[in-house]
């Protein structure tokens, strides 16, 4: 499919969405789109399972964080974003990187601190973003990237471009000042930014009732824009909410807060046995697994999901081998690149596989 090289000017229409297919809010998705969403979630889970195994083998330094059970949040939201949109992706949102076009080999290399990793070993685990694919890598101070996304949206508005920025953050992030500052700024200036609140029930060990006194989605209203609560374990519902938010954003109607209700099914990081989570809570959410849900949908449509699984597994096994064969970074260059010299390279455009972005000729 073609990727837009230049931003559309505000007010111009997008390509018409494909014909409706019905079911579970999927009216803007073709069957190929729905398979692509499954594929992104399978890739995410598969990458993280393999990375956890590499971690246990001592091949991943530091710690390891995953988004098991939350795959729909990043897959669905990222799938609604155009090539020229910009993303700040959080640490349990690997599917967004995969959808934007980061290869599994580079992700495995990143986890293992290898030269071929997205940051070349300069930052670890999920602290990355491929600038060439329109993503700014996160920092550990959550939710700092809400402000960076807000600033990108501010620039888009100032230049009259029909683009939008999206960032993810967690329930714990809603307690910090940067959450408030970003929501307020975006509301005041009516910016084309989408805030995806990934409510996965725990910030490390801290449950929701110790984090906020009101349902966080209500806060959007307090800042002067819309907030919607979405089943975060339904990739198609996440896609649809984000697609609608993006449409409003580029029409000049301002920001949206999307609360994706989900569950962190693993510990905060690899060391965390999650003893503080009641077993029945985990059991309950296990039944809502986002991948199984998408597979059931596609099976009903006659898709061979086993074939998709097999294809993804083969791709990831090959990627692990390739990453393991790659070198570690050379300490000779550890002091290089602190400062930029010369004209800066700007963010590039990412992949945007949704059929709704395809031009007529590409369909």
């Amino acid at each position, binding site marked *: 499919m073609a990727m837009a090289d230049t931003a559309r000017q505000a007010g111009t229409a997008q390509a018409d969405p494909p014909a409706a297919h019905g079911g579970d809010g999927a009216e803007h998705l073709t069957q190929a789109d729905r398979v692509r969403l499954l594929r992104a979630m399978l890739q995410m889970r598969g990458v993280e399972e393999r990375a956890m195994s590499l971690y246990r083998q001592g091949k991943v330094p530091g710690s390891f964080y995953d988004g098991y059970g939350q795959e729909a949040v990043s897959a669905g939201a990222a799938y609604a974003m155009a090539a020229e949109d910009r993303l700040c992706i959080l640490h349990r949102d690997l599917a967004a990187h995969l959808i934007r076009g980061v290869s599994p080999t580079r992700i495995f290399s990143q986890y293992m601190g290898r030269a071929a990793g997205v940051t070349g070993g300069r*930052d670890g685990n999920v602290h990355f973003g491929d600038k060439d694919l329109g993503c700014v890598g996160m920092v550990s101070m959550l939710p700092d990237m809400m402000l960076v996304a807000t600033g990108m949206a501010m620039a888009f508005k*100032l230049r009259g471009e029909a683009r939008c920025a999206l960032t993810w953050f967690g329930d714990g992030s809603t307690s910090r000042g940067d959450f408030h500052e970003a929501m307020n700024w975006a509301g005041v200036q009516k910016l084309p930014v989408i805030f995806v609140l990934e409510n996965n029930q725990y910030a490390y060990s801290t449950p929701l009732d110790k984090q906020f006194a009101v349902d966080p989605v209500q806060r959007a209203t307090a800042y002067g824009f819309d907030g919607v609560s979405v089943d975060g374990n339904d990739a198609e519902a996440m896609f649809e909410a984000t697609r609608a938010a993006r449409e409003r954003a580029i029409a000049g109607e301002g920001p949206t807060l999307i609360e994706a209700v989900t569950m962190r099914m693993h510990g905060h990081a690899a060391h965390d046995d999650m003893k503080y989570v009641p077993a029945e809570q985990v059991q309950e959410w296990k039944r809502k697994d986002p991948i199984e849900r998408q597979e059931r949908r596609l099976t009903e449509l006659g898709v061979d999901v086993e074939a998709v699984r097999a294809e993804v597994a083969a791709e990831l096994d090959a990627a692990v081998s390739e990453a393991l064969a790659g070198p570690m970074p050379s300490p000779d260059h550890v002091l290089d690149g*602190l400062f930029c010299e010369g004209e800066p390279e700007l963010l590039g455009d990412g992949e945007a596989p949704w059929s709704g972005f395809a031009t007529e000729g590409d369909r």
Partner: protein
Amino acid sequence: MATMTYLQAISSALRDEMRADERVMIMGEDIGVFGGAFKVTDGMIDEFGPERVMDTPLAESAIIGCAVGAAVVGLRPVCEMQFSDFISCGFDQLVNVAGKTHYRLGLAVPITVRLPSGGGFSGGPFHSQNPEAWFMHAPGIKVVAPSTAEDAKGLLHAAIHDPNPVCFMEHKHLYRRVKGEVREGVYETPFTARVARAGSDLVVIAYGAMVDVALKATEDLEGASVEVLDLRSLVPLDEDAILDSVARCSKVVILDEANMTCAAGAQVSALIAEKAFEDLDGPVVRVASPDVPIPFSPPLEQAVLPNVDRVREACRELLDY
């Protein structure tokens, strides 16, 4: 050439940049309609409009964070902290996001943060600080501190052109007190030190408002030939110029308005101890504010900030060593 105050020179640089480059925008609290707490951006909203001369919400973290976002998609934001003290509220965005992004991700963050700093006018503990050393300790941030009108303009042009985060320390006490000949149009002052007065018996190393204090304190020191080195840039620090002055003068007084511990002068002192020990004819002497908040009442404030008498006394003692 035109005669300008230090403040007018800063305004002039901003105006020239806004005219020359549509990517440049100014953002901060009360900088638009009101023209800024010190009137640095007075009238600019009329010429450039409210989107490029942006009155922001009262939120320093957001000012820096949004500037980072705007910068990575192609703008050249110049942020104003109303007082440099308030950068503490935007510290995380500056240090963790702006400063580390190029090293981690290869993504440049060309933002300039203007920081009206320094004391001497009863601003009290929250409107008088010199926070430059905070940023010197954070990798990935450049720090400049002009002492003259000409350098204020030239360093601000260079800061805005620089593809990295630059903290521009503009000393409030100099705004209307310092005047000088300033070149017309856009020019860049390099991020290097400048010999403010050449000498051979002793060198006073200073920056910002302390350069003028150093010059006054040493203009008539019983015939001693005293050099004054104006650092102008703290990151990068002009090691060659410092070592060159030390080699020629052999006696060194380092002057900071900031609190003593871990100030910029402490780094200069360490550099000299490591690389110029053999050139010294006496101990390195430091003059700085003692490690207390800058007090409000004039006699208390004057007791804390370095002044001409303290510097003169320090120089005399070292010359006699």
